[in-house]
């Protein structure tokens, strides 16, 4: 069994102790995924598994045999950035950049959850079919990703422009 990483099939580590984060960084050479706290508190290690956002630091790589992992390198590359990467550049969605890959992977996963109608802690009507991506919804849903530089305003603007520009404008009126 192999792990699919950005489309490439790779053998899972023999040592079951290897986290998915260390596997991506050390074995696959994909250093875009960052090790922040290594204990599930900061979100810097967020990657997508079959399109769902997870924390790679709290995952054992062997758990993800047969699954498809997408890291920041799989979302976009210099010259062909993902629209959200471009929006982060335009809105100053970072200073040091360490949390950025996790922020972007998390937001991509979040957008899929919104599209699926997954409610959040701040969703008032649990019976509703559609979720309006308000500032409040966006901030709640991104609360698992910390930014020690405090670039949150730029991060929120970049995500709002990419995934909720129209609804954001309506909410602001």
């Amino acid at each position, binding site marked *: 069994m192999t792990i699919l990483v950005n489309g490439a099939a790779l053998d899972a580590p023999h040592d079951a*102790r290897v986290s998915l984060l260390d596997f991506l960084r050390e074995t696959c050479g994909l250093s875009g995924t960052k090790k922040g706290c290594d204990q599930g508190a900061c979100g810097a290690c*967020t990657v997508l598994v079959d399109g769902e956002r997870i924390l790679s630091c709290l995952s054992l790589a062997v758990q993800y045999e047969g699954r498809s992992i997408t890291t920041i390198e799989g979302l976009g590359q210099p010259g062909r950035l993902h629209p959200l990467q471009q929006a982060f550049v335009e809105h100053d969605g970072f200073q040091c950049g360490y949390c950025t890959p996790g922020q972007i992977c998390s937001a991509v996963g979040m957008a899929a959850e919104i599209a699926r109608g997954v409610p959040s802690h701040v969703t008032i009507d*649990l019976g509703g079919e559609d979720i309006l991506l308000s500032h409040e919804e966006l901030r709640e849903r991104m609360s698992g990703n910390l930014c020690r530089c405090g670039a949150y305003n730029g991060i929120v603007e970049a995500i709002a422009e990419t995934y909720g520009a129209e609804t954001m404008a309506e909410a602001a009126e």
Partner: protein
Amino acid sequence: MTPFTYMRASDAASAVLKGGAAGARYLGGGTNLVDLMRENIETPESLVDVTGLPGGIDELPGGGLLIGAAVRNTALAEHRAVRLRYPMLARAILAGASGQIRNMATVGGNILQRTRCSYFYDEAGSRCNKRHPGEGCDAVGGFNRNHAILGASSACVAVHPSDMCVALAALDAVVHMRGNGGERRLAFTALHRLPGELPDVDTMLQPGELITAVELPPMPFAARSTYRKVRDRSSYAFALVSVAAALDIEGGQVRDVRIALGGVAHKPWRAERAEALLRGGPLSATSFAAAAEAELASAQALSGNGFKIDLARRTLVAVLEDLSGEIA
């Protein structure tokens, strides 16, 4: 992290065969166990991955739901039957952790997660009876602002950290388990223990026993239920105090009620005293206050958490007022 072997189980029977071995632990999403292993607080010799076990969210005859233990927290919170018929459960799950962690965490793993008491986590520098029975508890005389006000012992003042479990306690959930001796069921409120003299034992599970499912009995009035969590920051933090409640009202009287408190005890705290006082009584601010007073009557403050007693009373009253306003 100490070395261990890893294996996947495809069904409960084979999982229990492997999980019954000495030093074996079941692995769900890993969000707590992997962290504890990295800190050398948990040192299993083998991990049996049970995330591939069958079991979804199925309708039961009569209107209940059967939830497989491997169902992810996000999947449970987004399920329409849960959102419409047991909204306190959806709200409790959504009040916990982060989007990433809810995508990973399983129902069984959420139930069996361990306390976040900082002294329990401090393997190198603190005494903890939950880690090393008999060595003492540094939380009792230490930084205990987040610790228990109900049901604690001199051996342990830790609290159970789950939000989801508070709703399961209020909803009369039943836990389905399987061990080498066969299958059995237990009321959810009887699964977790108060610490007493054995704080290292969190639950009534037998060694090697596996949670396979959680059953929610039909409870039509739970469609009017909610969960309120009070915490130091508005998201991604554990509860100081939380309340799950459902209120069934007819003609200005409380016909039936379910209440559980979180963040206050070693286990999700079913508020049976408050329920008994409210049931059949008037729907009034006075009766809500009396019920909250009775439930917290046995509360005991530590050096740093006395505020939680008032906070629990007031949060309980506020939730009951919200629910009665919604129905009125």
